[in-house]
């Protein structure tokens, strides 16, 4: 394997010097060759931008609707995806709801990646007593059943999207920290760390330039793979009624609202679920391809 890489590298060497592609450029070039992932990325971009620009796309107020218009089927003129139980345009609510849903997928992962990453780096780099203290403490959180932990936290803090974000963040910290710790332990063995130490660099500097930069890819790929999971968990909590307050739309919550209709108007109920599903599927495809792309670069 290494000979292969080596000779690829050497080939690059032999080429007349063109501008060296940036790191992101290399990854993007790899990523682009994957059709499924590209499709997923396009769909994701469409969903995200549709949600962000919901107010430009939809003529309706997500919270306004006539009760007489309720539960119109998919394909009704004026309501592409039909209307919900209060007579509000479903597409509009899906788009507005997507903002919160996407946020509840992304933000906790971001927060837990920062916190977990930091804890994992500290534990992995310094090891010893501090390291095992941190990791054992996280084990405690980890051995809690995640969804129950989230339910517990949400119950403690009261329902509300903010609290879902908090509980999801807490739940995702231990796995991120584990990944970070393992990655750091791998990197810590590398000779360039020793070289940096022998040049007299401080731990902070070593962590910043050597450790962090080298575990970033793993952390990033792992984190992106968690967004879909987080999105599903958050919507699961919303589905249990622990999420947003009405009339704010959110996918899991909408699914919860419409779930009573599953046997009666199955198509209406399926819509928010499809959005959760498609989004998390696309996220998985993208993160998959990202992980491949990163690996190739390494």
């Amino acid at each position, binding site marked *: 394997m290494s000979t292969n890489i080596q000779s690829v590298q050497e080939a690059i060497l032999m080429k007349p010097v063109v501008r060296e592609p940036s790191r992101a450029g290399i990854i993007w070039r790899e990523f682009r060759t994957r059709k499924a992932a590209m499709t997923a990325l396009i769909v994701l971009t469409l969903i995200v931008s549709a949600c962000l620009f919901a107010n430009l796309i939809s003529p309706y107020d997500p919270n306004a609707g006539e009760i007489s218009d309720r539960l119109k089927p998919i394909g009704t003129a004026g309501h592409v995806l039909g209307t919900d139980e209060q007579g509000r345009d479903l597409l509009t609510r899906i788009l507005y709801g997507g903002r919160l849903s996407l946020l509840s997928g992304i933000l906790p992962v971001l927060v837990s990646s920062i916190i977990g990453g930091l804890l994992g780096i500290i534990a992995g780099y310094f090891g010893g007593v501090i390291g095992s203290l941190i990791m054992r403490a996280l084990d405690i959180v980890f051995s809690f*059943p995640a969804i129950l932990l989230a339910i517990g936290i949400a119950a403690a803090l009261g329902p509300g999207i903010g609290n879902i974000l908090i509980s999801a963040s807490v739940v995702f910290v231990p796995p991120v920290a584990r990944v970070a710790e393992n990655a750091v332990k791998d990197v810590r063995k590398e000779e360039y760390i020793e070289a940096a130490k022998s040049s007299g660099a401080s731990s902070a500097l070593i962590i910043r330039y050597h450790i962090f930069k080298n575990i970033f890819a793993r952390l990033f790929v792992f984190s992106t793979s968690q967004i879909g999971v987080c999105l599903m968990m958050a919507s699961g909590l919303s589905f249990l009624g622990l999420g947003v307050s009405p009339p704010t739309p959110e996918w899991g919550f909408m*699914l919860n609202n419409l779930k009573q209709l599953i046997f009666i108007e199955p198509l209406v109920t399926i819509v928010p679920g499809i959005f959760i599903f498609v989004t998390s*599927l696309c996220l998985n495809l993208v993160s998959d391809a990202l992980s491949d792309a990163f690996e190739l670069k390494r």
Partner: protein
Amino acid sequence: MTGFIGKRLLMLIPTLLGVSIVVFLMLKIVPGDPVNSILPPDATETERAAIRTQMGLDKPIVMQYLLWLGGVLQGQLGDSVVRRLPVADLLLPALGNTILLTCAAAVFSFLISMVIGVFTAYYPKSKLASIFNGLSLAGIGMPNFWAALILIGIFSVMFGWFPSSGMKSVDGGGARDLVLHLVLPTIAAALASLGVMTRMIRSTVSGLLKQDFVFTLQAKGCSSFTILRHVLRNGMPAILNVAGLQFGYLIASSVLVETVFSWPGVGQVIYQAISQRDFPVVQAGVLIIAVMFVLINLVVDSVHAAMDPRVRQS
């Protein structure tokens, strides 16, 4: 080997203590008073205070914790506040039901993911492999509560093949009836882990297929079957490790599936207990699940150690 397990068991103690403390503290900050689950809304404050005293809720939290811990260590989990039954009577049958569901889901996802994972690792470029990959991704992306609803919609309402809820028909009983009730919840619960396991098995096996020892086996003229045996044996620790985690997740995330299918499992019981502020049940339930989770991982590690001489001897 026994020493290995013994030491690992010792190391669990602080974790479990930590878990129990965290549950306790969490319940402390959960708003809502278990007394309200007992009394009608028009009960007065004096009536509430009386109950609180009787349940020991007026003691300081540390005291309550120690009393509870003492009880647990003696095998007494206390009485459910709301259901007025011993917690064990409430939890153990539910736990049994959850384990049944979880095992079914685990076996289901293990077998299928094994077949698909190995196939896609061996023939990564085949059409079928990319279909399988797509399916496993779909499994990961499918929210299980939604999948559950859809399964009910299709298989119980449209076709009427399987019952939509519970674990026993009224006149039923017997294995056939149970299996029929088990099918849909099993599929719904297994979906996500099926995806994760498939992908994990694929990457483990394809990684192993690139290893030198596999090459040696080929060079020795071993049959593909022998080679597969070696590969699986080597991949088993990693696979079991993930399977163990998945098993834990399955138990823990049973809440949603159990809710949709009205499966009388422990997830439901704990979820209800949380919403009813039935503290003894929540405490015991979460602790039991945490214990199971760590025990499963211990079992996985021990199996790993048993299978891998390098681990066994270190």
